[in-house]
Structure formats: structure tokens, C-alpha cells
């Protein structure tokens, strides 16, 4: 069961890109937790129908199909609770950029972190036109400004003593 849980967690970690995705998923997990105790003779995936996103419902359904979901409500609650806890503890990276990023680009950034840091991270993206270009990155208490705004500022500082 532990190996199965690790696999489920890995799947979920890969699917979550931003902090908004994480909040949304946690809300769905909480619904699954509360519906775990409601005995109506239906499976959990059936009980969650039209209450959660179809992706999440299919995810629960696949767990049921593969018999990875604990049978008693209490165990099921703990199972989801542990998943939620793990997800909440995922490292977060704050990125400040000047444009509205596409989903694909965010996935590219997430993959960059996976390849380079060997970690699944949650992106907290802030759109700030003042950045002009590049990015300001905050990770584990470190603040790294590689924005064009800073480059321009440096340029003017050298040439004219700042804007």
C-alpha cells in the first residue's frame, strides 16, 4: 500500500504546476475526505460525480479499479489526509515575470526544476510588468533578481548614476 501511495503521490505531484493548482486539488481531496464517511451504497468516485473535476473523479475511479483505495471510511480518510499533508509540504518557488505565461511554459519551468533540482516544486507565479524581462526567483529564502529591469538599472547606474 505504501508503494502504491508513493506512486499516487508522484502522479499528483507531476500534475500540479502552480499554487492555484495545489489549492484546487486540496479542495477536491477534502471533499473526498468528507464523502468517505457518507455511506450511500455508491463508490466514492460515484459519490464525487459532479462535485469535483472530472480529472479528479477519474483519478479516484482508477484507484478504486486498481484496488489502491482503502476500504474503511476511516482508513480512506487517513489515506487522503496523508496525501494532502505531503502535497502541502512540497517546496515552493516564487517567480516574478513580466508577462502572462502559458500553461505549456509553466510546465516547461516546472520540468526545468525537476531536471535541474531533481525535485517536484510548486510554482508561485507573479506577473509584474516592472520586471521588463527575465525573472526574479525566490526559493528557500533566497532572492535572486535576474530581471531586465535590474540590468537596465545597472546600465544607467554605470552610465548616468541611475534613472
Amino acid at each position: 500500500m505504501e508503494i502504491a501511495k508513493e506512486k499516487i503521490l508522484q502522479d499528483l505531484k507531476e500534475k500540479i504546476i502552480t499554487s492555484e493548482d495545489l489549492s484546487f486539488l486540496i479542495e477536491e481531496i477534502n471533499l473526498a475526505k468528507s464523502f468517505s464517511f457518507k455511506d450511500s451504497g455508491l463508490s466514492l468516485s460515484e459519490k464525487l460525480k459532479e462535485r469535483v473535476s472530472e480529472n479528479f473523479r477519474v483519478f479516484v475511479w482508477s484507484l478504486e479499479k486498481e484496488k489502491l483505495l482503502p476500504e474503511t471510511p476511516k482508513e480512506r480518510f487517513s489515506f487522503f489526509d496523508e496525501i494532502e499533508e505531503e502535497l502541502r509540504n512540497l517546496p515552493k518557488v516564487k517567480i516574478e515575470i513580466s508577462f502572462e505565461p502559458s500553461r505549456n511554459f509553466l510546465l516547461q519551468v516546472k520540468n526545468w526544476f525537476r531536471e535541474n533540482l531533481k525535485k517536484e516544486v510548486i510554482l508561485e507565479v507573479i506577473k509584474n510588468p516592472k520586471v521588463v524581462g527575465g525573472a526574479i526567483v525566490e526559493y528557500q529564502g533566497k532572492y535572486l533578481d535576474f530581471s531586465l529591469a535590474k540590468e537596465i538599472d545597472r546600465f544607467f547606474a554605470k552610465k548616468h548614476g541611475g534613472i
Partner: protein
Amino acid sequence: MKISKDFEEKLREMVEKEMKGILDELKERTKKFTEETVGFYKNETFSFSKKLEEGFLELKEINKEVQKKLLEESEGKIKSLEEEIKKEVSKFIQANSEIRKSLFEESKKQAESVIKNLDEELKENLEKVNQIIYKTLAQAEREIEEYKKEKLKEVDERIYKILNEVAKNILGKTIDLSTHEKLVIESLEKAKKEVI
């Protein structure tokens, strides 16, 4: 038959005499009857007067006693009445004092209530005035804040334009989406080299 004159004279005399006797007797009897009747009525009247006088005296005595009794009773009643009046007066004084006290208390209460109401009204009005002031101030602050934001936005937009122009000059081209994405990845690479 022929009646002699003499006989006739004698008969007349005899009838007259007889008649006179009868009349005298009748007179005597009438006189006697009258005297007896008068005497009887005199006696009766006297007796009646005496009885009347006695009755009157008796009545007078009774009247005196009744008057005395009545006087005594009246005195008792007057005393009792006086006592009652005294009590009533005392009660009245007491009641009057209580009424005055009650009126005073009531007036005091009403005055306090009026003062309280006035206080509350004053507080309410002050609250209303304060609310109006706060609202006006808040509205003014909001307007100032909006104006400030608008002006800052305008300034920011000018700065972005300038910065973009500068960036364009530095890079030699306009920053499109793919360039932006490329610059972000480059920033991450730099970050990796520096710290991460």
C-alpha cells in the same frame, strides 16, 4: 151646648195656669240639664286639661331625658367623629406626603428618562455625524487612493514604455513572448549557477 163666659174664663185661667206650671217645670228641667251638662263638660275639660298638662309635663321630662341622652350620644359621636376626622386628616397628611414623594420620584424618574433619552439622542446624532464624517473621509481617501493609483499606473506605464524601449535598444529587438520565455529560462540557469 152653650159655654158660659165665666166658665170660659175659668177654663182659660186654669189652662193658662196648667201651661205655666208645665213651662216652669220645663224651664226648670232645661236649666237643670244645662247646668248639669255644663258642669259635666267643665269637669271633663278640667280633667282633660289636667291630663294634658300632666302628659305635657311627662313629655317635657321625656324630652329632657331624650335631649340629655341625645346630647350624650352626640358628644360621644362628636368625639368619635373628631377622632375619625383626626385619623382621616392624619391619613390625608400621610397620603399627601406619600403622593408628593411619589410625584417627586416620578418627576425625578421622568426627568432622568428625558435626560437619558436626550443623551441617547445626542449620542445617536453624534454617531450619525461621525458616520457621515467617516464616510466622507473614507470616500475622500478612496478617491485620493484611486487618483494616486491612476497616476502611479500612468507613471508605471510610461516607465514600462521607456524600459521596453531601453530593453529593445540593448537587445536590438522587441521582446516578444518567445524572447520573454527564453529570458526566464536564462534567468533560471543563472540562478542555478549562482545559488540553486
